[in-house]
């Protein structure tokens, strides 16, 4: 303890426990018998080396006047909590326990190699794993501990010595110890049929002479081997099947997720396909939904079954977009399913749009039923609303029917135009012939007037005009019109 003067105290210390000389808590305190002052033993002895006085009151003092301080003072300072004097060690303890810590447990204390003869110095924490040529190792033949460096020499000697088996009393060289252990007739053995349930235990010699011949399990050993083989095969098969089931389950799970996303996107369309179970179209949807069907087979099935529902194969094929589109659509839906929370809000307006288009389609269909009766061409162009189709297919069909409608409207307009032109031409011709007739009549009339004037002696046409006021206004009006028409 006196060698370790530099303690680091964890807590503050009562000033009454401080030595006046070193200003630290008393370390091995001694009290003067003459004046009753207390100092560290080292401090007061060193002070007495300089002057034979008490440092506090200068009373005469010698080393003989010192006696160890009262035990209560010693206890007070010994129980102060200090840090370990090794900087790297974080251990704290009472001061009186620190010495023990350093001597026995502090891992940062330098100690010599625990093996005798090795003069290396190392930290205690490292010494546990230290191996040197002086480390003791156990000889496998004679079980004595020898230094690692001498093990080879020891073995050469050791192996040649004779040893006696504890069980059978046989003498042999130590090098043969391990081989003897496997053949000693006295060594305890268990029946080789132990795995099958035989509980016999006995000496090796008894095993072959007595037990094997009478062991009921040994008699069945042929059966056991076959049984084991079969079990093994079955287990292997079972593991393979388990794996397959697992992969199928994961497949089903992904398909279910896809289906859910698809149903979410489809909205009312999906429900309708469920309702129409009896209709021929459901076979398509059923095959579509069956999970064990590989995805690449779907489009083929759709095209195969398409002539059943609609006469025009091309029009129905339009309901099913190419496979790339389906897959990209599924991928979108999958990615949408992976983050479902924000997607829910997006889903509702989409669904409402679908509903709108659906009701619009219904209205459209109702509007055009008479048209389809009258004109067969238009009726075939309108897409039938079939809920077994995909939403995209139906939209595509609707778009196509709109296109067809616009085409037919265009042809109708053209036909109207042609009819109008024809009629106009015909009317023009008729008008021209009427004009010619009128002109002829006018000429005849004129000739008749001239004849009449010659008969009455009046040559002035103006007089002639005035002489027929009642009739001429009407005629004149008519003639002037015709004239203006001919002039034009």
């Amino acid at each position, binding site marked *: 303890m006196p060698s370790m003067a530099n303690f680091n105290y964890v807590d503050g210390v009562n000033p009454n426990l401080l030595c006046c000389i*070193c*200003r*630290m808590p008393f370390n091995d305190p001694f009290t003067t018998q003459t004046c009753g002052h207390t100092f560290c033993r080292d401090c007061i002895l060193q002070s007495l080396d300089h002057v034979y006085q008490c440092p506090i009151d200068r009373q005469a003092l010698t080393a003989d006047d010192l006696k160890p301080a009262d035990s209560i003072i010693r206890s007070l300072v010994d129980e102060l909590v200090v840090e370990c004097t090794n900087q790297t060690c974080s251990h704290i303890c009472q001061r009186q326990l620190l010495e023990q810590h350093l001597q026995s447990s502090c891992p940062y204390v330098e100690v010599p190699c625990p093996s005798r003869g090795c003069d290396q110095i190392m930290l205690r924490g490292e010494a546990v794993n230290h191996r040197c040529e002086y480390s003791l190792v156990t000889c496998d033949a004679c079980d004595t501990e020898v230094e690692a460096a001498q093990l080879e020499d020891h073995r050469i000697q050791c192996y040649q010595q004779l040893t006696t088996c504890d069980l059978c009393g046989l003498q042999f060289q130590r090098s043969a110890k391990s081989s003897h252990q496997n053949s000693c007739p006295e060594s305890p053995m268990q029946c080789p049929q132990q795995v099958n349930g035989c509980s016999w235990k006995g000496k090796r010699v008894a095993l072959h002479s007595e037990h094997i011949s009478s062991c009921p399990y040994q008699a069945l050993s042929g059966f056991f081997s076959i049984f084991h083989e079969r079990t093994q095969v079955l287990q292997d098969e079972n593991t393979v099947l388990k794996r397959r089931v697992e992969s199928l389950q994961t497949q089903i799970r992904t398909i279910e997720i896809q289906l859910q996303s698809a149903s979410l996107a489809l909205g009312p369309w999906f429900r309708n396909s469920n309702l129409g179970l009896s209709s021929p179209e459901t076979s398509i949807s059923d095959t579509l939904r069956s999970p064990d069907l590989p995805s690449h087979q779907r489009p083929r099935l759709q095209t195969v079954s398409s002539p059943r529902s609609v006469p025009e194969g091309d029009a129905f094929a339009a309901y099913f977009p190419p496979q790339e589109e389906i897959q990209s659509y599924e991928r979108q839906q999958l990615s949408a399913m992976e983050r479902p929370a924000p997607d829910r809000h997006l889903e509702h307006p989409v669904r409402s749009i679908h509903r709108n288009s659906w009701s619009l389609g219904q209205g459209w269909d109702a509007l055009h039923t008479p048209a389809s009766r009258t004109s067969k061409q238009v009726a075939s162009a309108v897409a039938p609303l079939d809920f077994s189709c995909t939403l995209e297919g139906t939209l595509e069909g609707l778009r196509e029917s709109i296109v067809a409608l616009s085409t037919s409207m265009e042809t109708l307009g053209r036909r109207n135009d042609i009819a109008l032109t024809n009629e106009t031409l015909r009317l023009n011709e008729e008008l021209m012939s009427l004009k010619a007739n009128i002109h002829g009549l006018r000429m005849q009339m004129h000739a008749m007037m001239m004849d009449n004037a010659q008969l009455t002696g009046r040559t002035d046409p103006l007089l002639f005009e005035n002489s027929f006021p009642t009739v001429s206004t009407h005629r004149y009006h008519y003639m002037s019109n015709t004239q203006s028409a001919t002039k034009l």
Partner: protein
Amino acid sequence: MEQLTTSLTPRPATNKAPVAGSSQQSSGSVAKRLGNELMTLMMSASPGISAFPKNDGNLFEWVGTIEGAPGTVYAGLSFKIAISFPPNYPYVPPAIKFETPCFHPNVDINSGGICLDILQDKWSAVYSVQTILLSLQSLLGEPNNASPLNTDAAAIWNNQEAFKIHLLRHYRPLKDESA
């Protein structure tokens, strides 16, 4: 003068029995005690006295300051003190002298040496820098004219007016040196 020089040189540690323990071991404990004293000085604000190590690396050379106590001729004057600790401190006293010229019966005006019993034979290991500086502060006001180092000062001590004139004639302001 001879008495002064002998008093200034620290007494050899081996004048009695050799000190127990190696010097290396003791220097660690001395540094620890000096650090402890420095802490105490800084924590307790004693009026008119202060001391610090000259530079950070060396705890054994300190510079202290004493202000003259009010009511004495030294009132308002500051004196710089050099303190040098021996390796076997606190069993032997530190070497102390005035850096600022001090006209005082017990102080050598040229070398700054001090004639004070506690710095010599009356030294005790329980004394500290704080007690030394306080003793010096009181020594300024109450000189021991019985054993003067500066006989001129001792002679005119009773005439305080003349003493002050002499004092101020020798006094150099602290600033130049402490800068």
